[in-house]
């Protein structure tokens, strides 16, 4: 949205825009001041996006750029969709090896557990971690709990380890008893480790060199210790490596 466009908007529309953009402004702020604040917020947002995107994503952005500034709509919702579905469920999605996203809902009759004087605690999420052997056989299951509020319905969860499987249970306590409302699907966090060169082939010792030439400059053989192997974020984003002749 350009200054030219903002100048054509009424003060009411500018206030509404400023609110949409989470801009702090005093009630006495005039049109000029509001416009400056909105433009500042938009610019900040733009540079934040630009710096967080890798080259492939930056180029992709230009595919959808018809205008220079972000379009902001003040229109009413044309296509309403339900906010909730009156069902009890919890779902888990993998965002990256160390973060997952959970969303959930409680149906009205389950919500009553917390509202009807049944002495139930607020709900909590139990995150189950299943560590597996190299053959994908479960070797141990552990868990940790995350308290949530009744008003919450989604959460990003930091996963303790890559390479493990995870699932969630939405629970509450009634006295000393723990009750489960629902459980989620299971996700498996990717390992971020290099496998063993199982079947030989190639030229002796070339396996590491080729992995290196494929883009991993700080290659280390996977360790039997339970360490998080080097992540490849830095060069994935830089996407440029210098090879020696």
């Amino acid at each position: 949205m350009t200054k030219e466009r903002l100048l054509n908007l009424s003060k009411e529309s500018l206030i509404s825009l400023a609110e949409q953009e989470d801009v702090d402004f005093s009630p006495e702020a005039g049109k000029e001041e509001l416009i400056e604040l909105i433009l500042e917020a938009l610019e900040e947002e733009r540079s934040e996006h630009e710096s967080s995107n890798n080259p492939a994503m930056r180029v992709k952005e230009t595919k959808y750029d018809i205008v220079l500034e972000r379009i902001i709509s003040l229109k009413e919702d044309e296509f309403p969709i339900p906010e909730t579905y009156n069902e009890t469920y919890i779902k888990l999605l993998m965002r990256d090896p160390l973060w997952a996203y959970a969303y959930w809902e409680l149906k009205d009759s389950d919500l009553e557990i917390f509202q009807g004087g049944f002495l139930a605690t607020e709900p909590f999420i139990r995150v189950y971690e299943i560590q597996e052997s190299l053959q994908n056989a479960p070797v141990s299951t552990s868990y940790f709990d995350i308290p949530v509020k009744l008003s919450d319905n989604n959460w990003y969860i930091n996963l303790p380890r890559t390479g493990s499987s995870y699932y969630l249970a939405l629970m509450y306590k009634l006295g000393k008893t723990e009750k489960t409302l629902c459980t989620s699907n299971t996700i498996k966090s990717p390992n971020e480790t290099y496998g063993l060169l199982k079947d030989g082939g190639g030229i002796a010792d070339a396996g590491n060199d080729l992995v290196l030439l494929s883009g991993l400059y700080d290659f280390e053989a996977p360790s039997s210790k339970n360490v998080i192997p080097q992540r490849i974020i830095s060069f994935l984003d830089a996407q440029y490596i210098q090879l020696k002749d």
Partner: protein
Amino acid sequence: MCKGYLCLVFHAHLPFVRHPEYESFLEENWLFEAISESYLPLLRVMNKLKEDSIPFKLTFSISPTLASMLSDELLQKRYINHLKKMQDLAAREVDRTKRDSQFKPLALMYKELLEANYYDFCEVYKKNILKGFKALEKDGYLEIITSSATHAFLPLYDQYPQVVEAQINTAVISHGRLFGKEPTGFWLPECGYYPGVEKHLKANNLHYFFTAAHGTLFSPSRPRYGVYAPLCCNNGVHFFGRDLQSSSAVWSGQDGYPGDATYRDFYRDIGFDLPLDYIRPYIHEGDIRIFTGFKYYAITGKTNQKKPYNREEAAAKVREHAENFLYQRTMQVKRLSRLMKRPPIVVSPYDAELFGHWWFEGPQWLDHLIRFSAEQQEVEMITPSEYLKLYPENQIGQPSYSSWGNRGYAEVWLDSSNDWIYRHIHKAIERMTELAIRFPEEKGLKRRTLNQAAREVVLSMASDWPFIMKNGTTVPYAVRRVKEHLHNFNRIYENLCRNTVNTEWLTSIEKKNNVFPDIDYLIFSNG
């Protein structure tokens, strides 16, 4: 025998945007700009190479939504109107710059480009540029593959195998209808892989796909040749890893070729630079300034003080960059082939719209690259199918969950700006599955209704909408599109639960969202 192979993959995709309910629609310009600036210039380059008997082999993935729009009569008609409007602007620009020795040649250049586009679109391809791609495939220059039906980022739907199957199967059927042959390979949108997706690829007779570099490198068995040879999943479907070096040379606006100061600047455009009174007929209603494609400045540097674009200087630079790219690949395959028992394959995938639209000189770079390649024997161009014919036996492996997005996973498409969509899309998938199971043998109106419901669900899944919500300028449109498809689906679902159908409304959304005429809702009971 050559020392190594170069596999250039161009992924062409745009989301389904078609608004017959409006006279003109801002976001339809995505398609028009891509046709004018990327697809037609690329077709011209390839046809000229063919005419000059220069051999080349390229892989094009053309997404089902893009292919559908390119063959849609309404959008074809609207593209011609758009071209005419731009030709009118070109004529005015030639006149406006007639006394300006720096800008006049550029105005003339745009006028000529638009004339060439008009001629090619109307006369050569008779409004359907898919014909151009098909002819090149028939002559053996291209291998055309497909992608998921609406370019859904599949890892975020892994718990719903039926919808992954629907996305892939619908894509394959649509490809067969529009290109007259089955695709052999598959472009996973955003290189988004999750373990198990290969099952659906195999079921749809697809032989290979591509992964991000780390997707291949983190295979449980270490890839013996890194990303320089395909691996084979346990079910026989092959995968090729993306080469980072050659990719970054072209992708990166900072370190890559497209960022060179000589090249045309993407952002300086007369749509924003010229007075409103002059430019008003060519921008969006309500005086919303938009890109017109008339850009007169060179990148110059990280400053707003831009130098006028000089075609000759850019032409010399693009030649130099093509030569450099080939030299770098030659050195790369020399190094690699010393370590391998077979010629390496360097897989370089790019968004097709990068060429011409963002990197104006991109099509000329490709032209030079292919011409230089034809003069040497060390690096040979190849398609994935041809490579697999030469080397059908490959190491067994399984890619790791990955994408080519920021930091290599799903954070672009699953972020605080867009995560709200998944709760609703997942619910729609569950309800669509319920409908497919509840109504297994419907005919007539009810079948039409169910097919439209399936169409709305897959349309809501396009990866473009969460991407734009996170990064784009047209966020309200992306939000509206997800909500529109979910709203339509929910309305159908509720109607079917009451055993009613609003025929008039159904017909109107069928006409509007007319993609995938052969979609079969029963696909939701599979997977």
